């Protein structure tokens, strides 16, 4: 376990307090371009241990309707990676920030800011521009459409820079594949709870339990469970709690409908009734 990872440290600090780390996810520009930044500050004030920010993309295949629609609206409002980085520079959050972005917005940001001699240099090596521009406001990056096979250039860009490239595994990721991921994983491991897209689900599937157990055996990093989570009592379906819980769609739906960050976070701040790992 890399001692220098801010993300790992943030989760382990929660573990010591015998609760899972709280990792809210918010698509940039949601619910609107001004309120978004206020929400980030309120999340920090109301118990977030890590904040994930979604970089909007026009074609988010891993996302359900809510995040897809929020992304579309954000794009129409002019939100892009440069806008996010500029805002992060201004608000100076204390909790570590992770950017979740599909590959193309990252690739094009890098393309636009590099003068490579040829296509391959611009497309792949140019990703290094990202690490330079992300520091020190971003501690991790999640690329939902970059599996093991395509992760090489992204690792080259981020490894050793203090920015963790977060690995995602799902219910259908074999233990053999998990072992391959384990050699590259940093920060925490994002365990996708279902075969499906992001979005609120009432119950956690049995699949989630099995995936967590297999991931526990494969990785020497904290496990963060995501996709479908909205409230702590869902975790009762698991044998043992994950080290961190990621909630996106439920939080966003709450905020879009005018609810406060404080109200949404409240149940997660109560004494945690389940056993950790």
């Amino acid at each position, binding site marked *: 376990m890399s001692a220098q990872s801010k993300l790992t440290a943030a989760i382990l600090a929660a573990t010591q307090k015998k609760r899972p780390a709280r990792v809210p996810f918010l698509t940039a520009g949601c619910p609107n371009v001004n309120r978004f930044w206020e929400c980030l500050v309120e999340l920090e004030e109301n118990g977030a241990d890590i904040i994930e920010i979604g970089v*909007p*993309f*026009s*074609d*988010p*295949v*891993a996302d*359900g*309707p809510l995040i*897809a*629609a929020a992304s*579309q609206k954000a*794009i129409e409002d002019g939100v*892009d*990676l*440069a806008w996010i980085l500029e805002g992060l520079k201004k608000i100076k959050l204390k909790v570590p920030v992770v950017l979740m972005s*599909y*590959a*193309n*917005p*990252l*690739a*094009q*940001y890098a*393309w*636009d800011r590099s003068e490579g001699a040829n*296509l*391959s240099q611009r*497309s792949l090596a140019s990703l290094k521009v990202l690490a330079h521009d992300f520091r020190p406001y971003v501690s991790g990056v999640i690329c*939902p*459409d*970059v*599996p*093991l*096979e*395509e992760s090489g250039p992204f690792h080259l860009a981020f490894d050793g820079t203090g920015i963790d490239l977060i690995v*995602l*595994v*799902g*219910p*259908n*990721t*074999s233990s053999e*594949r998990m072992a391959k991921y384990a050699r590259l994983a940093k920060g925490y491991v994002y365990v*996708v709870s279902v*075969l*499906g*897209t992001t979005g609120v689900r009432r119950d956690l599937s049995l699949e989630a339990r099995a995936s967590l157990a297999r991931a526990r055996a494969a990785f020497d990093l904290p496990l963060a469970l995501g996709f479908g989570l909205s409230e702590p009592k869902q975790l009762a379906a698991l044998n043992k709690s994950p080290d961190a819980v990621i909630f996106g769609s439920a939080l966003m739906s709450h905020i879009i409908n005018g609810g406060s960050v404080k109200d949404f976070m409240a149940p997660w701040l109560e004494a945690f009734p389940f056993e950790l790992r």
Partner: protein
Amino acid sequence: MKAYYGEFGGQYVPETLMPPLMELEEAMDVHLADQTFQSELSDLLNNYAGRPTPLTLCPTLSKELGFTVRLKREDLLHTGSHKINNALGQALLAQKMGKTELVAETGAGQHGVAVATVAARLGLSATIFMGSVDVERQRMNVERMRLLGAKVESVSHGTQTLKDAINEALRYWIVNQKTVHYCFGTAAGPHPFPSLVRGFQSIISLEARDAYQKIIGRSPDMVVAAVGGGSNSIGAFAHFIPLVVDLVGVEAAGTGEEGCYNSAPINLGRPGILHGQRSMLLQTASGQVLPSHSISAGLDYPSVGPEHSYLHSIGRVRYGLANDREALEGFSLLARTEGILPALEPSHALGWLITNQAKIPPRSEVMVCLSGRGDKDLDIVLSHLDAIKN
């Protein structure tokens, strides 16, 4: 099996789609070269779909243009386009894999109809995702798919066209991967789809190459095909790539006005990542995919198969442009001279030939891939008749 064509291709998909893609690749290794599979597929192609297709000499058109034009007649196939070559191949493979359902995306509805058709024939169920804009403008094909027993799902978010239908089909596949095969319609998407679809469509150039040998004792000088996602064109080029043949792909330039929406990512886009592949892409500077446009719904796609991007990058294939008006000219010229109504997709290839007529040496042998028939496009053509007259 290679996942990349030079810099292009790959598997940019969520981790949850990697296992079904790997399963598909394994199934390709096991079945595609297998004798039984090959003979079952041949039987379906020959006796159900109508292969081999003719290579039709166009005497009047040739006279008008000043060089010899022959058409590879994919328009004569069952369901009216080359799409059935791929649909049959993938459906048969899905059956061998023990899948019970096909999911597919469709734009104009040609691939959707082909999938609904082969699903009915092979006893599989079919779910077709189609953008709500396309559902509206291609009513007849929606009805055809339903009559064939397929479920048509209208996709009403994003641009509500092909691009979003693909997103939705991919999401459906994530959830239902145990029983469902995603029958991708063009030689694009995550590996192994580009090589899988190329394999099934390359029968076009295999037959054409042999037919040319028989008729003129050599290969044609030039092969021209329209490029949207790129399946009819890669099929028409495949067996000519190693030979000395001038290969021309024609992209749809939209209305042709400066800055108009178009479907020409090779000419007017830059490399980007969409639908599991890295390829040429129409996009904004911050990486958002732009809406595409073409008078031909079958070419209306903001990216293109990775092998085309590669063939362009190494200079092996030239990629030209034809706009809506040129396509309509191609349509009417073929109708008038040869009594054949082409689909608006290959009409772009014909339109390019008319525009570039003077640059093609007299007496050249030129093959045009006539990927589909024009019946489906009559409404659109009629509504643009003014453009033809002017």
